[in-house]
């Protein structure tokens, strides 16, 4: 399957990655080759096969439903590019 330039731009936008106009063609070529290569999976019959999300048969454990904020607010904020009064700062989102 071909990933044309319009589709590259759509995928880039969904991925929140800015792709420059001159890079679009390069990504279109590369992604098309990769997707064409993985298209070979269509040769495998998979009717009535259960999909696998995880190779382990471990049941996901459930912990007690207790509020626990970890009491590590300062640690969590320590690597943030910008904080104020215990919050992460981002540009204005709502006008």
């Amino acid at each position: 399957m071909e990933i044309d330039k319009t589709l590259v731009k759509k995928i880039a936008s969904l991925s929140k990655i800015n792709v420059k106009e001159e890079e679009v063609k390069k990504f279109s070529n590369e992604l098309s080759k990769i997707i064409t290569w993985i298209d070979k999976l269509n040769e495998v019959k998979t009717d009535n096969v259960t999909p696998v999300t995880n190779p382990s048969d471990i049941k996901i454990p459930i912990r007690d439903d207790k509020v626990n904020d970890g009491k590590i607010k300062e640690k969590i904020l320590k690597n943030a590019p910008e904080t104020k009064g215990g919050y992460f700062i981002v540009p204005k989102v709502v006008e």
Partner: protein
Amino acid sequence: MNDLKDINIEKSLELLKTKKISSKELVEFYLTEAESKKNLNAYISLNLDNAINLAKESDKRISSNKMRALEGIPIAVKDLFCTQNFLTTAASGMLQNFIPTYESTVTQKLWDAGAILIGKTNLDEFAMGSSNETSFFGSVINPLSINNKKYVPGGSSGGSAAAVAANIALAATGTDTGGSIRQPASYCGIVGLKPTYGRCSRWGIIAFASSLDQAGPMTKTVKDAAILLDIMAGYDNKDSTSANLDDINFSKSFDKIKKLKVGIPKQYKSDKLSPEIVKLWEDGIDYFKKKNCTVIDIDLPHTDYALATYYIISSAEASSNLARYDGVRYGKRQSSNDITTLYEQTRSQGFGNEVKRRIMIGTYVLSAGYYDAYYLKAQKVRSKIIDDFNQAFEKVDVIFTPTAPSDAFEQGTKIDDPIQMYLNDVFTVPASLAGLPAISVPIGLSQNGLPLGFQIIGKRFDENSVLAAGKIIEDCANFGEKK
């Protein structure tokens, strides 16, 4: 100090215990060696401030008979494990200044056993690559390079493999998603073990593909791999896929396993396989027969589809895991007055090309309209691949294959062709998809004079048989003498 050249963990522990050497001497030796071989670019950072002080503390414990399992042993750690208050980058521009406020479970277990962090090793960016050429901090050079050219150490744990091979680390940790411990171990002539999915906690390891990622040891000998696994393995309630099993003392039990049934999958015998690898494979089969093992041909019919399955699943999980790098909570930020521009600029400047490619492939296969055709399809083929192994393991204890289709290649020869690069993982990816333990052990040299490793795959949670089979190859191949 020249006698430290061929030392390993097993021997070091003996020398420390009998006080023939101090931990301080050992740590100083590796720091000095690492500084003198900076050209390999195997380390991103060295623990120059702390390692010697920690060694002095270990020496005190040893003299007061309080020696722990890995007391005073210097260990290099792949820079994908978060280390508290110590730079952790994932070899990405996105995390070039990231200082974690917490320690990964696996590294904490090592330090609690007395091991000492010597430095953080280079890798492919976010562990995505097979040549260690995608690192933000530059490529790693294979210490066994020939003809005055620069060869790749393999990847993604290329820095760890190069460091052990160059003896600028006594041993290292790695992580393996599709072959990232085993393939570089093969290229650098060392031992690399990927344990069963769930054996070692993933907590605090920067995530690439969460249903595949697994930590493991990269060492000079099979015994050393078992010694490290003893400490690295174990249940952790902070990782929801961590296996809650009784502790096993691998290093004291694996060599009691004898008379293994060894499977040879016919689908791995491709026409494209070089005659030298075919020859080494036959040698390996002879080694097993000599040690009273039975060798049986087996079928893994869906092998040919493993790589495509892997690239769909790993890229999908990567696109989801790497969504967290948004310039808000940690890592790089490219400021803007507009939130979407902030995200897009941060991510386009912070990630390298290979990472962007995989995020975009992953985003595509998960997107509306394509999810069933790609992601769901891959999950179903994965199920078939697991079934193949389940059936094979009704007949055999372990499976014996080459680790990679070739020896190490020159830098720059495959980096512009993603699919050629992905093909390096053709033999390692199936065991990853099935979550099985697998080891790479050096078996001989190629005609170019570069190392080649072979892989042993085992049943889930049967690392002991994998280690036992690995020890047979190690003993019979006598690789140390061939180097």
